[in-house]
């Protein structure tokens, strides 16, 4: 079982997302992450989701996704070279000497502090999932107050595009 990244171009219409999600739950497949938003053409949405599966299972999932009427195109990004990015916002307790340490760590990870109070830093970080996870491990665990991650978004490298 390996991590699979599936990219879907679909109609931006009510119920479309629930059909995609329903397909996973009704077959007992788990969705690890999911991100979705309209494309440059607002009648369509682009959705990236990650799931765990072997080749056979993933082939069946992509075929089933293709069968949904609202789904226009499906590719498994992780089948070839691709770029993945995820955005994380993390709220950290930052007092005393920790303020400097956190600031240092944010610089190393090329993140940004986007909100500051006398006791709190809110950090924004973009990268692949592993980098975001590494940042969480790099800061003092007890300082972490809240984490929100967008889930992976991805594109194929090179000229390959997912469009109508």
């Amino acid at each position: 079982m390996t991590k699979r990244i599936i990219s879907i171009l679909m109609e931006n219409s009510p119920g479309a997302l629930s059909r995609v999600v329903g397909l996973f739950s009704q077959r007992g497949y788990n969705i690890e992450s999911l991100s979705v938003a309209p494309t440059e053409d607002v009648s369509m949405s682009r959705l990236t989701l990650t799931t765990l599966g072997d080749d056979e299972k993933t082939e069946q999932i992509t075929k089933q996704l293709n069968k949904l009427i609202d789904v226009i195109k499906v590719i498994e990004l992780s089948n070839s070279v691709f770029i993945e990015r995820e955005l994380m916002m993390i709220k950290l307790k930052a007092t005393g000497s920790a303020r400097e340490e956190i600031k240092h760590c944010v610089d190393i990870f090329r993140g940004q502090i986007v909100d500051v109070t006398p006791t709190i830093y809110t950090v924004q970080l973009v990268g692949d999932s592993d980098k975001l996870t590494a940042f969480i491990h790099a800061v003092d665990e007890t300082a972490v107050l809240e984490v929100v991650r967008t889930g992976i978004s991805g594109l194929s490298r090179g000229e390959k595009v997912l469009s109508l």
Partner: protein
Amino acid sequence: MENLSGGDLLTRALTDVGVELIFGYPGGAALHIYDALFRQNKIKHILVRHEQAAAHAADAYARVTGRVGTVLVTSGPGATNAITGIATAYMDSIPMVIISGQVPSARIGEDAFQETDMMGVSRPVVKHSFMVQDPSEIPIIVKKAYYLASSGRPGPVVIDIPKDMTDPNQFFEYRCPNTVSIRSYTPTVKGHGGQIKKAVRAVMAAKKPIVYIGGGSLAGQGPELLTRLVKKLGVPVTSTLMGLGAYPGTDEQFVGMLGMHGTYESNTAMHNSDVILAVGARFDDRVTNKIEKFCPDATVIHIDIDPTSISKTIAAHIPIVGSVESVLRDMLKMIETSGKSLDTSALNSWWQQINEWRDKHGLYTQNRFDTSGMIMPQEVVQAVYEVTHGDAVVTTDVGQHQMFAAQYYRFDKPRRWVTSGGLGTMGFGIPAAMGAQLANMDETVACFTGEGSVQMCIQELSTCTQYNLPIKIININNQALGMVKQWQDMNYDSRYSEILYEDSLPDFVKLAEAYGHVGMKVTKREELKDKLKECFAMKDRVVFMDIYVDPHEHVYPMQVPLQSVGDMFISRTERT
């Protein structure tokens, strides 16, 4: 152009897509639609007694005619009652459109009276669903719904219509294109030429081939093309429960149904084959038995319009995505122009082998059941087959009687066998018979059922009275839930958990009479045929035949669980 209310837009659009018959049941949220129906005269509405029956009747109408069946129900319980019927159609890929009333848009989500999220509840059992959000879109949605239901791999489509969308005081222009296209929906019809060539090569090189057909082969010209191909090749053909009738059932080359209760010769031939040509079948678990032991020597060629059916359970060596019609036509052309035929001596010895299996345990060469005691269920099917000259439209409920009907009623023509295969829905038989009868009032329609199943939609006897639907109900009464009993006999040391009615069965003769029908009880072998003749001679009456049969009989052959396709119990005492 005159402007119409939402309700009138709907009936107009339904008329334009060719709907002549709707099965339904009115209620609060559907009142505007029912009023629009009242004010037109092109569409006939059949008032059922329970929404489940509306869906089954529309489903059977679709199976018999090849057209889309139409259902109209109200919100809440009306919609949820229809769900079993929708799921039945979904599992068997039957084209159907279900129009459900919904509470007014402004009330959705407020737990309004008779509110159910029909889009959500039906989602796993529909091909697609629409909720109307603007009345002017009703015609285009209707057009899309019928297109989706009937194209590609067919299936049920729901249109949920909030009550305000059919407001009689708001008017809209009727706008509907002649054709619709959906950018995200382009079913592959034409098979890949290279794949077809490969398939033909594999078939022509086969020494022990078998054609395995399913419900998909009934589409369009499928049966005709299939018969031509099988005749041309001279190969054996077997069918799933769903595919019966796509190839003539009494033809020499037909080796019977395969699967759990398939014939000995078909299952054995499948297991020993070297090439399987699967046509519109989906390698269902009732066919394959244990996947790992499935047909070890066979090259699998799989033709299906639905890519998800291919290599879902059994990996296809040569997959062909496309309509059965188009692919078979291409295959035939290729074979006919090549002028080649199969290796005659190999094919002859294959047939010799198959005929030996046929003689040994076949169902039709001699009776495989004991006729010394009570009437046997198989005899009932045989007798009905003879009395109706094998030319009735047959519907069934679910259980032992269904399997006996599938085994012993041999269909020479397509679309005359109506059974719930995938979902196995008890209660299907009577409403299905109504739908089949309405599709053609001149046909003889027989419903094989059991005293268990028949009570699940028995209320429809009243609908039969109202619309003069002279169906013949053949109740194979074994006084127990027979199929469950068989499994309890075989796997639970005959511990009969909850399968007996303890003298609570109704007097079916009186029950039939109470609805204005004819009822007959048969208990003796000597009178079986005469009573059946009497029954089928009453062309304009519903006749309920309550036929008491041996309560201990099992359905055989039966595949041994978790074994190969060809591993079967032949009788209580014999195993392959």
